[in-house]
Protein backbone atom coordinates (compact mmCIF):
# COMPACT_ATOMS: atom_id res chain seq x y z
CA UNK A 1 0.00 0.00 0.00
CA UNK A 2 1.59 3.25 -1.15
CA UNK A 3 1.65 5.96 1.43
CA UNK A 4 1.36 9.66 0.68
CA UNK A 5 3.36 10.64 -2.38
CA UNK A 6 4.41 14.15 -3.29
CA UNK A 7 6.00 15.65 -6.37
CA UNK A 8 8.34 17.16 -7.17
CA UNK A 9 10.74 16.41 -4.32
CA UNK A 10 12.90 19.46 -4.95
CA UNK A 11 12.47 22.56 -7.07
CA UNK A 12 14.01 25.96 -7.51
CA UNK A 13 12.04 29.04 -8.59
CA UNK A 14 12.73 32.75 -8.79
CA UNK A 15 10.80 35.53 -7.12
CA UNK A 16 7.51 36.36 -8.79
CA UNK A 17 7.10 32.94 -10.38
CA UNK A 18 4.31 30.48 -9.68
CA UNK A 19 4.62 26.90 -8.46
CA UNK A 20 2.32 23.87 -8.33
CA UNK A 21 2.96 21.01 -5.93
CA UNK A 22 1.13 17.71 -6.13
CA UNK A 23 0.03 15.12 -3.61
CA UNK A 24 -1.53 11.67 -3.80
CA UNK A 25 -3.08 10.59 -0.50
CA UNK A 26 -2.81 7.23 1.17
CA UNK A 27 -5.33 4.75 -0.14
CA UNK A 28 -8.66 5.08 1.65
CA UNK A 29 -8.03 8.62 2.89
CA UNK A 30 -10.37 11.39 1.79
CA UNK A 31 -8.92 14.40 3.61
CA UNK A 32 -5.76 16.19 2.50
CA UNK A 33 -3.97 18.89 4.48
CA UNK A 34 -1.04 21.03 3.41
CA UNK A 35 1.65 22.35 5.71
CA UNK A 36 4.62 24.67 5.29
CA UNK A 37 7.71 23.89 7.33
CA UNK A 38 10.52 26.42 7.52
CA UNK A 39 13.95 25.24 8.60
CA UNK A 40 14.04 24.51 12.33
CA UNK A 41 10.31 25.12 12.77
CA UNK A 42 7.25 22.97 13.14
CA UNK A 43 4.80 22.46 10.29
CA UNK A 44 2.41 25.41 9.83
CA UNK A 45 -1.10 24.62 8.65
CA UNK A 46 -1.99 26.08 5.25
CA UNK A 47 -5.36 24.50 4.45
CA UNK A 48 -7.34 21.29 4.43
CA UNK A 49 -9.45 19.78 1.65
CA UNK A 50 -12.34 17.39 1.99
CA UNK A 51 -14.81 16.39 -0.72
CA UNK A 52 -13.07 18.77 -3.13
CA UNK A 53 -13.78 21.77 -0.90
CA UNK A 54 -11.40 23.85 1.19
CA UNK A 55 -12.70 23.09 4.66
CA UNK A 56 -10.30 25.04 6.84
CA UNK A 57 -7.53 27.54 6.22
CA UNK A 58 -4.60 28.73 8.28
CA UNK A 59 -3.08 32.18 8.35
CA UNK A 60 -1.71 32.23 4.79
CA UNK A 61 -2.36 34.85 2.09
CA UNK A 62 -4.52 34.28 -0.97
CA UNK A 63 -1.36 33.65 -3.01
CA UNK A 64 -1.65 30.15 -1.59
CA UNK A 65 -4.46 28.20 -3.21
CA UNK A 66 -5.31 24.59 -3.68
CA UNK A 67 -7.50 22.05 -5.26
CA UNK A 68 -8.70 18.53 -4.54
CA UNK A 69 -9.69 16.20 -7.35
CA UNK A 70 -12.41 13.51 -7.34
CA UNK A 71 -9.75 10.84 -6.72
CA UNK A 72 -8.76 12.79 -3.54
CA UNK A 73 -5.39 13.87 -4.91
CA UNK A 74 -4.53 17.49 -4.35
CA UNK A 75 -2.48 20.41 -5.62
CA UNK A 76 -1.01 23.38 -3.83
CA UNK A 77 -0.42 26.50 -5.91
CA UNK A 78 1.64 29.46 -4.81
CA UNK A 79 1.62 32.62 -6.94
CA UNK A 80 4.00 35.59 -6.94
CA UNK A 81 6.67 33.70 -5.02
CA UNK A 82 8.62 35.52 -2.32
CA UNK A 83 11.99 34.59 -0.85
CA UNK A 84 10.17 33.78 2.39
CA UNK A 85 8.17 31.06 0.66
CA UNK A 86 11.29 28.88 0.62
CA UNK A 87 10.39 25.89 2.79
CA UNK A 88 9.48 22.23 2.88
CA UNK A 89 5.86 21.79 1.82
CA UNK A 90 4.24 18.78 3.40
CA UNK A 91 1.08 17.06 2.34
CA UNK A 92 -0.76 14.87 4.84
CA UNK A 93 -3.76 12.65 4.34
CA UNK A 94 -6.10 11.24 6.93
CA UNK A 95 -9.51 9.78 7.45
CA UNK A 96 -11.78 12.44 8.98
CA UNK A 97 -10.48 13.30 12.47
CA UNK A 98 -7.77 10.68 12.36
CA UNK A 99 -4.00 10.77 12.54
CA UNK A 100 -2.10 12.44 9.75
CA UNK A 101 0.05 10.47 7.35
CA UNK A 102 2.68 12.75 5.86
CA UNK A 103 4.52 12.55 2.59
CA UNK A 104 8.23 13.27 2.42
CA UNK A 105 7.61 16.80 1.23
CA UNK A 106 8.54 19.09 -1.63
CA UNK A 107 11.55 21.28 -0.91
CA UNK A 108 10.99 24.69 -2.56
CA UNK A 109 13.84 27.17 -2.90
CA UNK A 110 13.01 30.68 -4.10
CA UNK A 111 15.94 32.72 -5.41
Amino acid at each position, binding site marked *: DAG*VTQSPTHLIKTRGQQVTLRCSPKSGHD*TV*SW*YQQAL*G*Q*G*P*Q*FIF*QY*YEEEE*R*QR*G*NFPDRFSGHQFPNYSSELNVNALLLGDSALY*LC*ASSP*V*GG*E*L*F*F*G*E*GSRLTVL
Partner: protein
Amino acid sequence: ENQVEHSPHFLGPQQGDVASMSCTYSVSRFNNLQWYRQNTGMGPKHLLSMYSAGYEKQKGRLNATLLKNGSSLYITAVQPEDSATYFCAVVGTMGGDMRFGAGTRLTVKP
Protein backbone atom coordinates in the same frame (compact mmCIF):
# COMPACT_ATOMS: atom_id res chain seq x y z
CA GLU B 1 -5.42 31.25 17.46
CA ASN B 2 -4.20 27.87 18.70
CA GLN B 3 -0.67 27.95 20.15
CA VAL B 4 1.64 25.07 21.01
CA GLU B 5 4.94 25.49 22.88
CA HIS B 6 7.62 22.86 23.51
CA SER B 7 10.11 22.43 26.31
CA PRO B 8 13.00 21.97 26.09
CA HIS B 9 13.91 22.96 22.55
CA PHE B 10 16.96 20.69 22.58
CA LEU B 11 17.70 17.51 24.55
CA GLY B 12 20.93 15.48 24.58
CA PRO B 13 20.72 12.43 26.84
CA GLN B 14 23.20 9.58 26.97
CA GLN B 15 22.23 6.24 25.46
CA GLY B 16 20.18 4.31 28.01
CA ASP B 17 18.86 7.40 29.82
CA VAL B 18 15.25 8.56 30.00
CA ALA B 19 14.41 11.50 27.73
CA SER B 20 11.68 13.78 29.02
CA MET B 21 9.94 16.50 27.02
CA SER B 22 6.68 18.38 27.20
CA CYS B 23 4.40 20.78 25.40
CA THR B 24 1.75 23.25 26.46
CA TYR B 25 -1.12 24.47 24.35
CA SER B 26 -3.82 27.11 24.28
CA VAL B 27 -6.83 26.38 22.12
CA SER B 28 -10.38 27.64 22.00
CA ARG B 29 -11.69 24.09 21.73
CA PHE B 30 -9.82 20.82 22.28
CA ASN B 31 -10.47 17.51 20.58
CA ASN B 32 -7.19 15.58 20.83
CA LEU B 33 -3.42 15.84 21.06
CA GLN B 34 -1.00 13.83 19.01
CA TRP B 35 2.77 13.30 19.14
CA TYR B 36 4.81 13.02 15.96
CA ARG B 37 8.44 12.27 15.27
CA GLN B 38 10.39 13.68 12.34
CA ASN B 39 13.76 12.51 11.10
CA THR B 40 15.86 14.91 9.05
CA GLY B 41 14.70 15.15 5.46
CA MET B 42 11.51 13.18 6.04
CA GLY B 43 7.89 13.88 6.84
CA PRO B 44 6.62 13.56 10.42
CA LYS B 45 5.41 10.14 11.58
CA HIS B 46 2.54 9.70 14.02
CA LEU B 47 3.47 8.19 17.41
CA LEU B 48 0.30 8.32 19.49
CA SER B 49 -2.93 10.20 20.15
CA MET B 50 -4.63 11.21 23.42
CA TYR B 51 -8.11 12.54 24.01
CA SER B 52 -8.79 13.76 27.55
CA ALA B 53 -6.88 15.15 30.54
CA GLY B 54 -5.45 12.39 32.70
CA TYR B 55 -5.12 10.10 29.70
CA GLU B 56 -1.93 8.05 29.67
CA LYS B 57 -0.61 5.99 26.81
CA GLN B 58 2.34 3.64 26.51
CA LYS B 59 3.74 2.43 23.23
CA GLY B 60 6.96 0.46 23.45
CA ARG B 61 9.51 2.72 25.16
CA LEU B 62 7.24 5.76 24.76
CA ASN B 63 5.08 6.91 27.61
CA ALA B 64 2.83 9.96 27.27
CA THR B 65 0.44 11.78 29.56
CA LEU B 66 -2.19 14.34 28.64
CA LEU B 67 -2.58 17.14 31.16
CA LYS B 68 -5.16 19.89 31.29
CA ASN B 69 -3.25 22.21 28.95
CA GLY B 70 -0.26 20.17 27.95
CA SER B 71 1.37 16.83 27.54
CA SER B 72 4.53 15.04 28.62
CA LEU B 73 6.41 12.47 26.58
CA TYR B 74 8.99 10.14 28.06
CA ILE B 75 11.28 7.83 26.12
CA THR B 76 12.95 5.21 28.28
CA ALA B 77 16.35 3.64 27.54
CA VAL B 78 16.97 6.01 24.63
CA GLN B 79 18.99 4.74 21.68
CA PRO B 80 20.85 6.68 18.98
CA GLU B 81 18.09 5.76 16.52
CA ASP B 82 15.62 7.72 18.69
CA SER B 83 17.41 10.90 17.62
CA ALA B 84 14.84 13.04 15.84
CA THR B 85 12.61 16.06 16.38
CA TYR B 86 9.47 15.34 18.39
CA PHE B 87 6.33 17.42 17.84
CA CYS B 88 3.15 17.80 19.78
CA ALA B 89 0.11 18.69 17.66
CA VAL B 90 -3.32 19.75 18.82
CA VAL B 91 -6.65 19.32 17.05
CA GLY B 92 -9.18 21.93 18.14
CA THR B 93 -12.33 20.43 16.64
CA MET B 94 -13.14 16.97 15.34
CA GLY B 95 -11.81 16.76 11.81
CA GLY B 96 -10.28 20.21 12.08
CA ASP B 97 -6.81 21.43 11.37
CA MET B 98 -3.90 20.22 13.44
CA ARG B 99 -1.53 22.81 14.93
CA PHE B 100 2.10 21.93 15.63
CA GLY B 101 4.67 23.41 17.96
CA ALA B 102 8.31 23.99 17.01
CA GLY B 103 9.31 20.66 18.51
CA THR B 104 12.00 19.23 20.76
CA ARG B 105 15.15 18.12 18.99
CA LEU B 106 16.49 14.96 20.63
CA THR B 107 20.09 13.89 20.03
CA VAL B 108 21.15 10.71 21.83
CA LYS B 109 24.86 10.45 22.64
CA PRO B 110 26.25 6.91 22.22
